[in-house]
């Protein structure tokens, strides 16, 4: 591995959630997206620090939405996937795909 760290599983899940949600990616929607698709319970307390790390790596960017009367008057922290983030996701996927090559789905293990 060329000095750069690979994406962790959780990081991948969050990045994929951002990608799927497009313009609507923020804490609540991301949490529900990951939960609905994977059944994995995600804590808000884990999303933000992880996203901050991804942002520091330049994979996502974030901005605060205009506060409305809802949400107790708190603004949303929205995320957007950066080109580098998309590349990182694709790399992660091709790595996994490469390892799976040659196995038909469902024929491993059992």
């Amino acid at each position, binding site marked *: 591995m060329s*000095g*750069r*760290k690979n994406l962790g599983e959780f990081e991948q899940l969050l990045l994929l959630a951002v990608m799927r949600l497009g313009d609507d990616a*923020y*804490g*609540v929607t991301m*949490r*529900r997206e990951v939960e609905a698709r994977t059944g994995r319970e995600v*804590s*808000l*307390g*884990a999303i*933000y*620090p*992880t996203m*901050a790390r991804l942002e*520091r*790596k*330049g994979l996502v960017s974030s901005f*605060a939405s205009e506060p409305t*009367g*809802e*949400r*107790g*008057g*708190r*603004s*949303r*922290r929205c995320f957007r996937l950066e080109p580098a983030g998309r590349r990182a996701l694709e790399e992660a996927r091709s790595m996994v795909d490469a390892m799976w090559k040659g196995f038909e789905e469902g024929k491993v293990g059992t």
Partner: protein
Amino acid sequence: MSEPIQRRDLPRGIRLLLRLLPQEYRDACEGDLIEEYERYVIPSRSRRAAKVWLWRSASKGALVGFGYRLYDLFTSESGTSDGRGGRHPRMGVGQMDIVAQDLRYALRRLVASPGFTLVAIVSLGLGVGVNTALFSVVNAVLVRGPQVADPGSLVEVYSETTEELQIGVSSWPDFRDVATLTDVFDGVTAYEMFFASQNQEDGSDLVLGELVSASFFKVLGVTPVLGRGFLPSEDEVPGRDPVVVVSQAFWKGRLGGDPGVVGRTLRLNGGLYTIVGVAPEGFTGMWPALSMDVWAPSMMMDQLMAFGNEGRYERRGSQSVFIKARLRAGVPLARAQAASSALAARLLEAYPEVDERLDFTLTPTLDVSVHPLVDKALVPVAGMLMAVVGLVLLIACTNLASFLLARGADRKKEVALRLALGARRGRLVRQLLTETMLLALAGGAVGVALADWTVRLLTRFQPPLPVPISLDLSLDRTVFLFALAVSLGAGMLFGLLPALQSTKPDIAPTLKAESHRGGAGRTGRLRSGLVVTQVAVSLVLLVGSGLFLRSLIAAQAIDPGFQAPEAAMISFETRTSGYEDAEALVALRQLQERVAAVPGVDAVAAADRLPLSASLSLEDFQIPGHEPPEGREGIALDAVSVGAGYLDLLQIPILSGRGIEASDTGGSEPVLVISQAMARRFWPGEDPVGQVIRTRGRDVRIVGVVRDTKVRTLGEAPRPLAYSPLEQNYHSLVTVIARGQGPAPETLAILRGTLNEFDPNLVIMSETTMPEHLGVMLFPARMAALLLAVSGGLGVLLAAVGLYGVVSYGVSRRTHEVGVRMSLGADPGSVVGLVIGGGLRLVIWGAAIGLGLAFAVTRAVERFLYGVSATDPLTFLGVPLLLLAVATLAAYVPARRASRVDPVTALRSE
């Protein structure tokens, strides 16, 4: 839709929790929490479930976020070296250094004064320990709930009928109708508990099981680890499919953990059952505290629990099962409720003969701990117990705060110097808090270890109850989080005040030579206040334990009205054992003859239940001249069926007429023997012998009056009780009592042996001895007294340590003063008196406040007391005296040290 939720609508505790998150994204998180709560959670859950969600999400989010924060803090140093380009925006290397520095500093200081550190850790450990231990019980009974998949979408379906006691049970046909509501429910299951005897070559064992619908495991999302759950076809034809799923514990224990167990058979109540599956670890059925051994399809009910009630699977009037349903995804509770109520209305119309009223009410499973009725009784008791141990923790924390204050005062000069040199106060407070947090964590660790030990003791202990209680008291994640939260919370709460106090920026006076005598001011008052609090709180605990101890002693001295100290008894079910009632009565007579013939057995008798049993049986009586209550056919009174010799064996004296005799058989005139209380209530001043009353649709003649016995509880006032001859009123569950010459366990062994020889397939429900039986009654009183005595004892111990600390600290501050006094000719005795007097003044204040509190608080427990009033003078006088004695001792030790001060040294110590 109601008003949008504002930030201030969030409970304060949640806002505090969120403070654990860094400023950077705290607001966004808070907004997310409110948004999800308002938009998704409130509409789909009950109020309580929604609240639970909110607290769970907030605390989990805050703790996880805090964890990340700590992690980032400690890893950001290495972060710069792993080639990451970006800089940590908020938490720089400097911050990390500061935390590490604080930790090092705190550790150094704690190690430097091992005595203080030890006392603080042990104090906190005791407090956290008792709290965690008790909480693990509360957790197992009330919090954890059954181990099923996604409990959030499960609902309890309770039947509401005209029954007086709304237990919520339904009939099996009702269940099958509810199961048709497939547009709102994803699946529906029903279950009912049964006892059966497992027949083995060497006698039989009692097994506890649940009769369930075929859908049971599927609906609950419980996957057997071996084999499978039930197939729909196995619950279709009555009696056709004798299959069982066994529990993990049963498999590992009685079946030896055989990996090939699926396909093997079990003999239950004489029939062979094929094992089709083994339930996963941790799944013990639907009731906390009870561990099921087996599950069987409901269609096997006639074989497993007939009790003369065959064919219940098609009887609508026979309500005995609990129903659970899983809501279809996206279906709101209200819609499912409407569908269920509509079904109930249809059923009511279709079967008007069953009942005048029927409704199904849905309650989210997460809102129920055991059962709404049980919860209502248990939750206040659990709350009270937690409050008691909470007080112990309070005393422990007060010690901690008091010590921290003392140390803070000692460090005043150092702190003042650092403030003068430009240190920020926040920084100093943080440093002091780091120390407290370390103490709290260490105390918490000691507490968890203590709790673990206590819980191990508790699990080994089997309360004397008719069903085997098995609580899984393992310290799970919830318990750990509880312990962590309690310790950190305590540390934070009781560390902050001293930290703020000792960093007060009153630099100038402190830096001036005032170092010795000056510190006594505010800090001293605060510490004195803490001691007063401790004494007051431990006095309340001690008064409580005193009252319960006195009550226990009084209860043990109660005359239950019957005497059979060495009797042993075994209960069994004759219908399940294969006897028709008439056969059973014949067999029962033969059995009694056999037991009586065993050398060493003095007397033997039978009854359908014993006085002071957990079960209770009421019968309606129509008594001339006495109107039954509105809407009832008769006056409901406690009733018991007994055989000849029963009154003799229990030494219940006959006051008038005769007792139940062997000549009172099914063929002879129906008779009744009544208790004195019943005679007094219905025939005051008359002899009721010869009176005829009606019960169960026939006339019965009263032939005798016997002395009162306790019927339901030891503490009750004399209660009317009617004795029928067993042969005239037989219900298939019978208890045989034997009195021998030897001790009770020996008699029990004789009884068991004879029974086994008589019929090895008898379905034994319970066996016990009289001392054990009476022990059940005293069990709650014993537990309450024990818990309070332990709490009170711990409280006093901790308060004594606290007092000792305060007094000895005071002595060390007053060395100078003492030196002056002694050099002026004061004798050591008067110095001791002076110092002790100072300490005792605090104790007397505390005791006075504590007495006031105790008067108010013990009112609340009055109904749990027996034979002692909530304002028992002995307790209220004795406890303060005891406390005073302990306090004097705690103050005497440092006082004596003060009197030995060498005046010259003391004066030089300036």
